[in-house]
């Protein structure tokens, strides 16, 4: 396995506030990597820097061996990095189908005039895009609502659509920002299965932000923990869950002392 994504000493300061401070990590090809941490720990800022939405103050991001620091979001996306958003950012007024077609279009070579005049290339690409998008809608069971505006879907469907939309980019790396937010435990379990299945089917690498510790523990091969912008721990779920620093961040100082004393005060992988 080789590192698909490598982050070197990434930092971001907003005004005087260090939102992310000197974070390094590397994600191997094919793994599901978890990024956890309490609210305000800098996880989303970290994602934004990976995807070109926020310019890092310092540090470097390498994707498949090439530097992507400072690229614009669409450039990063076109290199094969797709993401979802914590608060779901679908193209709410457009149809479900169009939501999935739009990322797929980024590979098309025909331009405006080809599109307008209906050149053979444009027609072929339009067909291919639509077919590929349809396949993805099948995967997430949304074909029956393909022509409805995305904003009218119920919450769970919107989450799934957003993942389908990210997959339409045919990414090599999929970044999921709190995909289980607002789901009940049974839905969460279903989502974990879905992520595993997607990774297999599309030969993906997944980097996942999650608040829900048990889900991360069950799903990820490795985990990094952020707190106040710093990486306080990294390793397998087992290594991380009893790390005193992690326990303190999540459960408080008392529990940390207990953990340090080996009294089994770990983050539970089930709740």
């Amino acid at each position, binding site marked *: 396995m080789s590192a698909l994504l490598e982050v070197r000493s990434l930092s971001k300061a907003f005004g005087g506030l260090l939102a992310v401070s000197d974070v390094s990590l590397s994600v191997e090809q094919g793994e599901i990597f978890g990024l956890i941490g309490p609210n305000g720990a800098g996880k989303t800022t970290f994602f934004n820097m990976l*995807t*070109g*939405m926020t310019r890092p103050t310092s540090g470097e991001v390498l994707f498949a061996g090439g530097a992507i620091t400072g690229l*614009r*979001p*669409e450039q990063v*996306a*076109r290199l094969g990095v*797709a*993401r979802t*958003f914590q608060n779901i*950012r*679908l*193209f*709410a*007024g*457009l149809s479900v189908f*169009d939501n999935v*077609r*739009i*990322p797929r*279009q*980024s590979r*098309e070579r*025909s*331009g*405006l005039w080809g*599109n*307008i*005049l*209906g050149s053979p290339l*444009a027609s072929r*690409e*339009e067909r291919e*895009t639509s077919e590929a998008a349809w396949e993805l809608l099948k995967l997430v069971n949304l074909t029956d609502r393909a022509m409805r505006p995305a904003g009218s879907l119920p919450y769970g469907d919107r989450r799934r659509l957003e993942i389908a*939309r*990210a997959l*339409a*980019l045919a990414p090599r790396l999929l970044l999921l920002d709190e995909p289980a937010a607002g789901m009940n435990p049974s839905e969460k379990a279903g989502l974990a299965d879905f992520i595993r299945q997607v990774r297999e089917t599309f030969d993906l690498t997944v980097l996942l932000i999650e608040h829900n510790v048990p889900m991360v523990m069950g799903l990820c091969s490795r985990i990094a923990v952020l707190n106040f912008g710093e990486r306080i721990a990294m390793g397998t779920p087992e290594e991380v869950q009893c790390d005193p620093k992690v326990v303190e961040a999540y459960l408080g100082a008392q529990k940390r002392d207990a953990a340090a004393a080996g009294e089994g005060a770990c983050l539970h992988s089930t709740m």
Partner: protein
Amino acid sequence: MAAFFDLYGFLCIMILQQALLGYSLYFPLMAGQLSLASIGFYSLGGYVAAIMGTHPAFEAWRATLGWLMIPLEWLAALLLSVVLAVAVGLPALRLRGIYLALATIAFVQVLNVVVLNMPIAGGAVGIFGIPQAFESRFAYIWFFGPLLLLTILFTLRLERSAAGRNFMAVREDELAAGAMGVRTTANKVLAFVIGCALAGVVGAMSAPFLNTWNARQGTFDAGVACLAYVLIGGSRSKWGPLLGAALLVALPEVLRPLKDSRLILNGMVLVLACVYMPRGIAGLFAGRRA
């Protein structure tokens, strides 16, 4: 029917012409950009045609090319508009919403002052006696009609193509569009340039139509009127600019019997239209269908 066209023929052409200006704002709006720059490009295009049509420096061209001079004027207006639109659009489109609108207003105001100071543009009185393409004003339907038809066809095709979906993705959520590989800046500039180029050509067609061109063509009021066409017509419908222009251009004429109080009523209709047709005239039809 002949009497109707004698009386309202000019008005009908005005509706087509103004609708085209409405479309020139529709494209940037399709990509979520509220621009009022069109009127500036309209003014610019008009000057290009007026200067090429009257300035002694182009005498030889006119003599050689004959009627071909007219499409050449369109082309010149188009090219100049595209170049200037890219130059203005690249920096200005970093702004959003009302800020972009204000920046484009500023651009139009500055352009107006600059034009007023350019000797070639004829100062305050502007340029007049622009060679006519047709005897009758109504015959200008052969300019504006096909252009409007092409524009609507273009819009139809655009909405159903990848290019149009890219625009709409930027409109719906620029950040997400970028994350999904849509070249946001390029698409915004493209939408802006299409609009500006259209406005430039409409200007070039309008200079002979009005027979005169001056700095009063590119005022803020005229620019806002174009926006009103789109919004009152329905900003999410390809028919919006046409419907809006039809209503708002015809209204003062329909109200003519009211004499000098007609603009009061015109204002009332604007307000009522906003309140009772928040999705525009096109929205009424859509609502009925649903």
